[in-house]
């Protein structure tokens, strides 16, 4: 396939052509209260074609693999570019001196999940579901399994010829309890690049189910917080969520050029000097956002977005890197063959500091210790709101009352400016989630515990 695509690249008259074959094998299992609620297994493949013609991008895709169909798809992409070029004044210039990339990249997989029959996975999930529902106060449970095996070949006009073989898997255990009609949930999840041993390297599936049950049981006795600004200590999952949602999106070059809050802030102090924020596709071989080469064929490199509180960079693709005079570092990603590559994060995190977590809590007179994310949303001005799974009041340096139904909000950069302590622990813990900027993407995020100020919302 790679050789075939390389030959077809030469058939286009466009200044730049990129052909991406992408095949995905996916299995999804959902067990709810002992029943198989969702079970499907699928394979789909196709070719995404992107051309740069008269300074304008055009994209098209096909699920048919004959030479004739691929050539037709190239022509459709060229036509799309021609039409747009009628009105576009800010043409994409030369993409620049891009070093062609070649090689075979394979995810580090310990005990591939494909070697475990689907029957075994269903049995495990049913067992966990039953275990959780047999525990005190738990009236319902859910277990989810989602695995993807991807094979890609990327070729382009620069002579790039890349082959990528990836395996990602995520797993959820959720225990539900009922409090006067209100559903209380305890969630434990993990998502990785890798196999069975990598997924369960930190906790066994049974330990995860136990934790989910414990969370739901404890939350049954929790009260709602009072709303208002507060000192908060975020756990690594929430730190990752702030790094990704509230800051990361504002430094994506397409948003920067569209007037995000990070525009004109390069070289300026935007956070406490304790904060260094990084995106890196190969920061950890098992982080869920593992992306050795992006879908434009650019090798992943570490990007320091904020260094010691100063904004140092943006996340770019080939086009925006040229506009902003930066180096592309592997952030142009497409979820499936029918999606064009757009600027995305990979693994986004805040670097460790020197505080012990206990020390951080002891120093806090009045505040909250927040753990676990329940979804987040942010806008181009870095305004964000996140649901929090568990929150403890901190009173005179001690964790006291457990609270539920908590959310936090604020401006991402204001929150980072208020950081006064960064811990010495580190964890990637956002791997079971997806980013949804126009198309899905598997990403990861994390960091150490971090103390800062945010608005706490309650009932």
């Amino acid at each position: 396939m790679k050789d075939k695509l390389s030959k077809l690249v030469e058939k286009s008259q466009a200044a730049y052509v990129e052909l991406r074959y992408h095949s995905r094998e996916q299995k999804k299992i959902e067990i709810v209260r002992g029943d198989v609620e969702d079970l499907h297994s699928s394979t789909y493949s196709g070719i995404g074609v992107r051309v740069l013609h008269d300074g304008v991008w055009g994209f098209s895709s096909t699920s048919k693999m004959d030479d004739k169909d691929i050539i037709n798809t190239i022509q459709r992409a060229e036509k799309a570019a021609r039409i747009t070029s009628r009105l576009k004044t800010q043409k994409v210039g030369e993409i620049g001196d891009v070093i062609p990339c070649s090689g075979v990249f394979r995810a580090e997989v310990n005990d591939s999940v494909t070697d475990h029959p689907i029957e075994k996975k269903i049995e495990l999930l049913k067992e966990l579901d039953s275990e959780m529902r047999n525990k005190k106060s738990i009236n319902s449970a859910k277990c989810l399994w989602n695995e993807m095996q991807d094979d890609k070949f990327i070729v382009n006009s620069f002579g790039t010829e890349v082959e990528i073989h990836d395996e990602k898997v995520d797993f959820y255990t959720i225990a539900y309890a009922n409090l006067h009609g209100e559903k209380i949930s305890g969630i434990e999840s993990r998502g990785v690049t890798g196999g069975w041993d990598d997924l369960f390297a930190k906790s066994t599936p049974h330990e995860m189910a136990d934790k989910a049950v414990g969370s739901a049981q404890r939350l049954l006795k929790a009260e709602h917080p009072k709303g208002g600004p507060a000192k908060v200590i975020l756990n690594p999952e929430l730190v990752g969520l702030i790094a990704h949602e509230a800051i990361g999106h504002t430094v994506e070059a397409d948003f920067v050029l569209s007037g995000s809050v990070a525009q004109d802030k390069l070289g300026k102090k935007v956070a406490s000097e304790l904060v260094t924020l990084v995106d890196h596709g190969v920061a950890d071989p098992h982080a869920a956002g593992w992306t050795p080469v992006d879908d434009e064929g650019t090798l992943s490199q570490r990007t320091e977005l904020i260094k010691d509180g100063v904004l140092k960079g943006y996340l770019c693709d080939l086009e925006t890197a040229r506009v902003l005079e930066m180096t592309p570092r592997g952030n142009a990603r497409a979820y499936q063959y029918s999606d064009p590559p757009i600027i995305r994060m990979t693994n986004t995190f805040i670097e460790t500091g020197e505080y012990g977590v206990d020390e951080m809590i002891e120093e806090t007179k009045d505040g909250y210790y927040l753990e676990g994310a329940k979804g987040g949303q942010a806008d181009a001005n870095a305004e964000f709101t996140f649901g929090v799974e568990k929150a403890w009041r901190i009173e005179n340096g001690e964790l006291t009352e457990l609270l539920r139904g908590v959310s936090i909000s604020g401006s991402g950069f204001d929150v980072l400016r208020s950081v006064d302590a960064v811990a010495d622990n580190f964890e990637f813990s956002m791997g079971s989630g997806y980013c949804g900027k126009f198309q899905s993407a598997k990403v990861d995020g994390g960091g150490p515990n971090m103390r800062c100020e945010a608005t706490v919302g309650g009932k």
Partner: protein
Amino acid sequence: MIEEGIKECLEQLKKKGLTGDVYGIRSRILSYSIMNGEVSDSNEYEDMGLGIRVFKDGRVGFGYCAPGKEEIGVKRAIELTSLSPKTEMELPMGEKPPAVKTYDKKVERAMDDGIEIAQQMVDGASSVDDDILPSRGTLKIASGNVIVGNTKGLFYSQDGSIITGGVAATLPGEKTSLMASESSSSRKYDIDFEEVGIAAGERVVSMKDLAEIPGDKIPVILSPDAMGILIHFGLLPSFDGENVRKGKSVYEDRVGDEVAAGYIDLVEDPTSNWGLGSFPFDDEGVLSSPVSLISGGILDNFFYDLKEAVQSGTKSTANGVRPSFKSPPQIGSRNVMMSGEDIPREELFAGRTILVDNVMGAHTSSPASGDFSVVANPAWLVEDGIKKGRLEGLMISGNLPGSLHTMELGDDHKKIYDSIGSATINIELPSVKLKDVTISGK
């Protein structure tokens, strides 16, 4: 090609003595992006595939494939039946579908003028103020055909079209840039996209001045866009028949009770001509008909697909929906409409109110209780209909099912079509005034 694919799948199932249904879609989608003040790039693609559901020994299996790969798709679906639990379900017989208008050929023709249409949004936003940058936006034009067939001889086919466009207008602010957006969607080519751009521009201009968040409790008016998102996450899950049966709905055992003010109706009507979620049949071939959820404030009914209808001892309400051909059917709303006694705008905005145009974090609402706590942005303090200043860092919280008893409805009905994460929001409703919302913020 889709039609032949579905027939081929059904033929294979019949030969094996199995029952099942097949959902097929072929759609052509053309999209244009707006970036940094101009139409930036375009993307054209065809989405085409078959979703196959097979019943064997009382168990169900699901698979999907591209046309031409029917044998693989059917084989995969059959294999999965052995791993599934016993499922009782009766596939529908073919009848005459209701006539529902869902396709406008002018939408398909508009694909040739897509770039000019996208440009109208850019021009509209720019015309409001020289400093405005139409920073981001999308125009998407789609048309296609959906076919559902089953081994009982049912075979329905219908064309559909949709055109949807939105633009974000950015204005340099003192501390940060101000940004506001507007969008509009229709199954017909009847949208004035220049007006969409102008609305985004005027909105961002009205964000320049700041006001203090009121310390007292005053009514909050949610725009159709803001309320549509809240209803989707905070109210509609309580109408899901499965949630009701499993005790995860505030409306369990409450049919016939007064659950809203007497002037409020909530209806699921996929037979409404040109409704964004309208279609003569659902994604498992059940014919559409209007379903009253709340009528005159009284709770009437819930959403059911074929599977849940058996579990709950009732009939499907034609609410078996699929996010794509790659997913088996699941319960979902299709074309929900909220209506009632409309109040003219001057009356709705009388006195001091807060106007909220969009909310963030609605997906964190409790689907079981309807409790919500969201960031309201943009939001303004309004006095007798005049915006007095933007409210920065405003959070609002409350309980949506509770608010139904006292809310008032405006007269500005809008069809909302949005997507947040994997959720597609599809509701027609007016602005709504809530009187029991807690306000907090900086």
